[in-house]
């Protein structure tokens, strides 16, 4: 809402386009547990930036329009006091941001979190669930064969891989923490779900963990946000958040269908 006010203030012509924007608040709606605090902090930052911008331009304009006056010399009042104030302001913002960052990134997911592996491949995302044995089977790049239904190169000799489920859609239960392990098969990809306020690159040769808790059931866009080749723009997938009971039945049905 605030952002739409901002829009109409800076760019009156956008009033025409307002109807086309799906929600008055230009950020897509938040559907994750940590997103509320992030949005709040982002909004605070945007307002502060806007206020400083307006203030500086006001000083600039008044300074240009007012009649000539002997030049200012009070170094402390003009230079160092405002700098000290800005330093305090930025320190406060940094502190708050670091606390949010620490709470989402400094520690891993809880042991009870749902485990899902995400693999980025030019130009698709694959999602792997470990199955009833709760262990991901071994994969090997030389076994990768998308045409034969093995896009991740699951090793048939590993007993853990037999019950692994591979899906092209990410389906998750609402209100349960998820521990994603991000991998990339070929080049760097960017795993991003705007509505979950999540973004993390998947890097070949690395497994990167990312955890979050989705809250609102619905379907959401998963994008690739790191330039990965000519099909970068169409490398997307869908995240489906289901109520826990529906998720359980989806998983059961998927397992039954698996060979």
């Amino acid at each position, binding site marked *: 809402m605030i952002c739409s006010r901002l829009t109409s203030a*800076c*760019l009156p012509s956008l009033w025409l*386009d307002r109807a*086309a*924007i*799906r929600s008055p608040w230009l*950020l897509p709606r938040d559907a994750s547990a940590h997103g509320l605090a992030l949005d709040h*902090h*982002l909004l605070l*930052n945007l307002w502060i930036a806007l206020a400083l*911008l307006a203030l*500086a331009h006001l000083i*600039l304009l008044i300074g240009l329009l007012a009649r*000539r*006056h002997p030049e*200012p010399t009070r170094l402390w*009042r*003009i*230079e*160092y006091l405002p700098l000290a104030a800005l330093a305090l302001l*930025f320190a406060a913002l*940094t502190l708050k*941001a*670091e606390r949010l*960052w620490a709470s989402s*990134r*400094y520690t891993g997911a809880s042991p009870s979190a749902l485990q899902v592996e995400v693999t980025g491949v*030019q130009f698709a995302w694959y999602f792997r669930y470990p199955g009833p044995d709760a262990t991901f089977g071994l994969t*090997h*790049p*030389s076994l990768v064969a998308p045409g034969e239904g093995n896009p991740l190169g699951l090793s048939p000799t590993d007993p853990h891989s037999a019950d692994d489920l591979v899906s*092209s859609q990410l389906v998750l239960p609402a209100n349960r923490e998820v521990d994603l392990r991000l991998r990339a*098969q*070929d*080049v*760097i990809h*960017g795993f*991003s779900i*705007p509505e979950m*306020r*999540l*973004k*993390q*690159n998947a*890097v*070949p040769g*690395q497994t*990167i963990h990312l955890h979050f808790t989705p809250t609102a059931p619905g*379907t959401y*866009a998963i994008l690739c946000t*790191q*330039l990965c*080749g*000519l099909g*970068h*723009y*169409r490398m*997307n*997938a*869908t995240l489906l958040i289901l109520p826990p009971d529906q998720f359980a039945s989806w998983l059961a049905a998927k397992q039954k269908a698996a060979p």
Partner: protein
Amino acid sequence: MTPPFNTPPAQPHSTSATRRRLCAALFTTDHRVIGIQYLVLALLSVVIGTLLSLLMRIHLVWPDWPLPLHGPILPEDYLALVTIHGTIMLFFVLTTAPQAGFGNLILPAQIGARSMAFPALNAASFWLTAAALLTLLSSTLVPGGAAISGWTAYPPLSAIPSSGPGQALGMDLWLTSIGLFAIASTASSINTLTTIVRNRCHGMTWERLPLTVWGWFTAALLSIIAFSVLLAALLLLFCDRHAGTSFFLPTGDLVNGILHQGGNGSPLLWLHLFWFFGHPEVYIAILPGMGLTSMLLANFSHRRVFAYRTMITTTLLIGLLGILLWGHHMFVAGLNPFASSAFSISTMAIALPAAAKVLSWLATIWRSRPSYKTPMLFALGFVSLFLTGGLTGPILAQPILDEYLHNTFFVVAHFHLIMAMAGIFGLYAATYYWFPLLTATSHHPGRLLSERLGHLHFWCTLLGAYAVFLPMHLTGLAGEPRHYAQLTGIPGPGGSLSPAGALLSHTLPLNRFITYTALFLATAQLIFLFNLARSLRKGKIASSNPWQATTLEWHPTMNPFPPLPASDTPDISVHRAPCQYQSNQVEISFLPQWAPIPFEQDEIEDVTDTKPE
């Protein structure tokens, strides 16, 4: 050496003599001519870069529009446009023009030197840069086209030819081009540093150096550090491509059916090396503009630069901090989260010296009733754009917010405002300000650009810059990622109504607006080109110091017109800090650095380091 620029048509000579004269004119070691050659190269590059950006904008909102003589713009074409636009603008415009172009043309004169320290190296740097540009442009013509991995060229995309069209020969040429450019920039920076350290005239102490020189000095220091690391990284990448090494490639990397089985390297190493260069590069592009803005605001306000010594310190501080915060490009790249916190703090810290500069600019012009000549307008525009682009910097410096904003158009808006637009405003200010020195030859005095066209150009450009880049913040907040070749009709797992397709198509109305304004902004630059073409021949003749400037480049003997025989050249010495303006004196209201008259010494005493209250 006679300045061969604008030599009058020669008498009928034998063709070999003409050829020799032409060669001498082209391969000159005269720093002024080399400066102009750099500026011509940058002008050519900026025209190409702008046209490429327009093609991108047009393709985003009218994807079916076929480019004449080419056909429809394919996704790989779009990414090649992105890559060449970024590379050309950052290297061949924003690095070349302020640092090498105006650096050569003005820097020696501003420190009272007759030439650069290493004239032959200087000429070699220019021709290497020209070769680099030609190599880059030629990469668009090879099979597969130009590279598509952006100006950051992240491996494995950039390391494995099978990863996409343009990643074979096109990528090799890109690497060669940037390698040549890095060598040229390092050499040119060594030249700049040596000139500043060794060739200052008598009396030109470090405190009396104009802030533009401090900008060039700091940028040259950064260039040497940054470009040598980049050169090393490019060589490593080249080895990964052709010598079977694995600096950036992990074992088991499988690209398009080709399995990498060599050693186990890490793509993150490239990110570290690249951004160790890439972030200082941003400051290399903007520091000369910051220095010039300080000097112009003082010049046209007839004031001293407020807190001159603080400005010198902040310039150096920005340079120092500038090499300590590359990790803020890597918050979501797989960096250790603790490292992200550390880089976040160093990034927030650089906001303070930058803010100190803005405060000094505001104080310098505060109630000064400046004269609004075009260079002053562009300097004021620089302040405004620097503020607008700079204030989103601390937002992006917070890892938790970058988690949402990274690689969205919010970032595109941020760096285009602070680096591209502010940088270009700095270049325009420099061009309008120094045009008399740019056009003066031994045969005719310098000319001024038209003020009326200049004012029109300024207002259209300022309006256009804001109209293009402010709305990008909003599409970025809405989630639009960078480097997307298409916003509509994106096939997804759910057909055209996939959530991703819906998210992107919602940004279309604003994107249309941005494309219209981008076309307006580009068209407005025709005013400048027209002004340039007309004023080169018909511009008003400038006096020897048309802006009442106090710095040495306006010293009458520094002007090539009228030419003085070497024996008559008086020794130049400097008597005071720049920007000695006096508002109370009627007859003489300013004292150039070179003027020896020590009149009313009390009043013109250097008060830049005023005691605190």
